[in-house]
């Protein structure tokens, strides 16, 4: 049997142990598990929680949009139905039948004014004859007609306020089940259309009413009208497409862990671009809700000093007579601490001695692709002529889809040159984040459906994107965009 070398025997005896005893020198530091844990995949049930939040926001947004579109189309349908003359010769162009309640014939006049808001009642004999003649006929039946009129038999305008904006009304009956006199005060907008009503007596009913362009919710004794007599200048529902320039920065502030060099600068604004598509829904004459998708390229810059201690053990002579030495370094960046190797090159004659500190600096640009889901509210003010201005605020959930780091340069000092061989990331990219947004802009109305918009936006992450040791960093940025808004 071949005898093993004594050297081999010695080292095998001491080092080839599956379960060595724990001592200080052969045990990793306590904080190592924390670093490992941060890079391990998430638990199965926690995988991509942000994705589900994003999907939820989109579904909610689509649901709301669909509701608005449905209500809008219903309103259009009603307007259309009102414009159709009944086929029966027994009905005038102001009368129609409510199919769900054939014992009532009510006016179809949708053009309510302060003085003409009354309903003519057809005599009972006429109604019976009409129902008999049209038995089985569906020509005049449309399910949407049941929504078209309020259940008010009589309204009397009593007086107007001194400003002409308040009107007092008395409703004799407002419910199809309970006839209760209601005394109310109407508030009107500048166009004379009601936008709120406060009733002094309870109506004892709760219903959604559709009167042409007015949606009314009557609950107890208070009714709130949504007046759309003069549609929002920014259109009831519009799709906005835009693109523009962005500038982002994320200054790293705070103290770094002992042993790392200080970041000198990290607040330079880096220009990129963005594109977006959003929906805008007017909820009153001035207010709108806005949300959608936005793709943004973000560049973050940081600049650090590095100091390498010269160690002859790592020195090699290169073909061109220069000496090469490889040094390790660790610098902060927006995605965490980056470890790397700096290859120093210097003339042999320089006589660098062991322990001497060789200085350099490193410039890192991290580029990220971000998909944003903004949701906000905005207030618009029409100006004379075709212009209107607006301002708004909101939040955005930002999904960081991927990124990369670019090491721009290493400095040259005292005939030394440095180059970075590679950079090892402690974590691959910055985390997904939520940001506040504030915007202001102007619309130019090209025609009734199309607007041009010029807009600027400022944004800032709600929580820091970098939070290691004592260092914190928020992303903030500015966007300048040009877009087009098209009324759907």
């Amino acid at each position, binding site marked *: 049997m071949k005898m093993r070398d004594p050297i081999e025997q010695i080292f095998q005896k001491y*080092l080839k142990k*599956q379960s060595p005893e724990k001592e200080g020198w*052969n045990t990793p530091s306590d904080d190592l598990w924390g670093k490992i844990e941060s890079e391990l995949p998430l638990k199965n049930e926690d995988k991509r929680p942000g994705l589900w939040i994003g999907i939820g926001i989109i579904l909610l947004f689509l649901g709301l949009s669909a509701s608005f579109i449905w209500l809008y189309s219903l309103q259009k349908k009603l307007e259309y139905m009102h414009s159709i003359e009944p086929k029966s010769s027994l009905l005038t162009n102001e009368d129609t039948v409510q199919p769900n309640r054939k014992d009532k014939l009510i006016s179809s006049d949708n053009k309510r004014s302060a003085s003409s808001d009354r309903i003519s009642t057809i005599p009972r004999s006429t109604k019976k004859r009409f129902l008999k003649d049209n038995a089985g006929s569906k020509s005049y039946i449309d399910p949407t007609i049941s929504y078209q009129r309020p259940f008010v038999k009589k309204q009397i305008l009593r007086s107007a306020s001194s400003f002409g904006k308040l009107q007092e009304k008395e409703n004799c009956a407002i419910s199809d089940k309970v006839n209760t006199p209601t005394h109310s005060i109407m508030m009107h907008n500048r166009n004379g259309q009601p936008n709120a009503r406060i009733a002094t007596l309870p109506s004892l009913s709760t219903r959604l009413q559709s009167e042409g362009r007015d949606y009314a919710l009557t609950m107890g004794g208070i009714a709130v009208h949504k007046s759309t007599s003069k549609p929002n200048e920014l259109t009831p529902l519009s799709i906005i497409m835009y693109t523009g320039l962005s500038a982002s920065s994320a200054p790293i502030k705070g103290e770094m862990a002992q042993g790392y060099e200080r970041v000198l600068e990290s607040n330079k604004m880096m220009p990129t671009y963005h594109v977006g598509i959003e929906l805008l829904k007017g909820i009153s004459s001035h207010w709108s809700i806005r949300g959608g998708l936005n793709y943004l390229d973000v560049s973050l810059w940081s600049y650090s000093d590095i100091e390498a201690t010269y160690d002859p053990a790592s020195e090699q002579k290169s073909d061109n007579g220069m000496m090469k030495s490889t040094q390790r370094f660790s610098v902060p960046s927006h995605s965490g601490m980056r470890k790397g190797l700096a290859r120093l090159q210097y003339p042999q004659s320089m006589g660098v001695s062991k322990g001497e500190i060789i200085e350099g600096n490193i410039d890192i640009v991290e580029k990220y692709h971000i998909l944003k889901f903004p949701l906000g509210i905005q207030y618009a003010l029409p100006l004379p002529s075709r212009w209107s201005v607006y301002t708004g605020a909101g939040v955005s959930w930002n999904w960081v889809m991927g990124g990369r780091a670019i090491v721009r340069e290493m400095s040259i000092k005292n005939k030394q040159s440095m180059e970075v061989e590679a950079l090892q990331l402690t974590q691959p990219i910055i985390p997904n984040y939520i940001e506040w947004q504030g915007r202001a802009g102007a619309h130019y109305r090209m025609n009734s459906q199309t607007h041009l918009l010029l807009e600027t936006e400022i944004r800032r992450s709600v929580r820091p994107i970098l939070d290691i040791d004592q260092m914190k960093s928020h992303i903030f940025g500015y966007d300048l965009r040009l877009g087009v808004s098209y009324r759907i």
Partner: protein
Amino acid sequence: MSKRKEDLKLIEACLQNDRKAQKQLYEEHKTAWFLCCLRYAEDRMEAEDILQNAVISIFTSLKSFDPDKGTFSTWSNRVVINAALQFLRKWRPVDYRTVSEAEALDYPDKSETIYDRLNAQELVRMVQQLPLGYRMVFNLYVIEGFKHHEIAEQLKITIGTSKSQLFKAKKMLKKRLELLFQNQ
């Protein structure tokens, strides 16, 4: 429950990305893994970097562990070695240059009693001070028990280079040991 069954249960939980189980597994094996990293690294800091990569590799490739083919210790040790070699290939330029023959000395003719005065920490330090090429071949051959053709394949060198690196590594270690004994 036997130790083996406990280990398998723990591994099963780790496969579900159970953090507690992963930490428990790490705590149980970290000393062995770290000792292995120390042998390949130049210093403690580098060893921790290697261990960090190695542990992530262990947990991400845990599915490939087959308990019928061997123990978890053996399998995980192999993953740690691979992680160490990968790390060194990436971050350290390997130089299989030779050292002067003057460095080659005879084996120190010492008694077992003197050898017994050695401790693992000193020996690990000696291995760490070897040039990278020597260190890798020495660890793979002497400690891990690989054959020269396996090492050559692993490190993408010739069998001759592997043998010469081992020979020179042992010579250098002999010299270091002798110096150590002289000081004692």
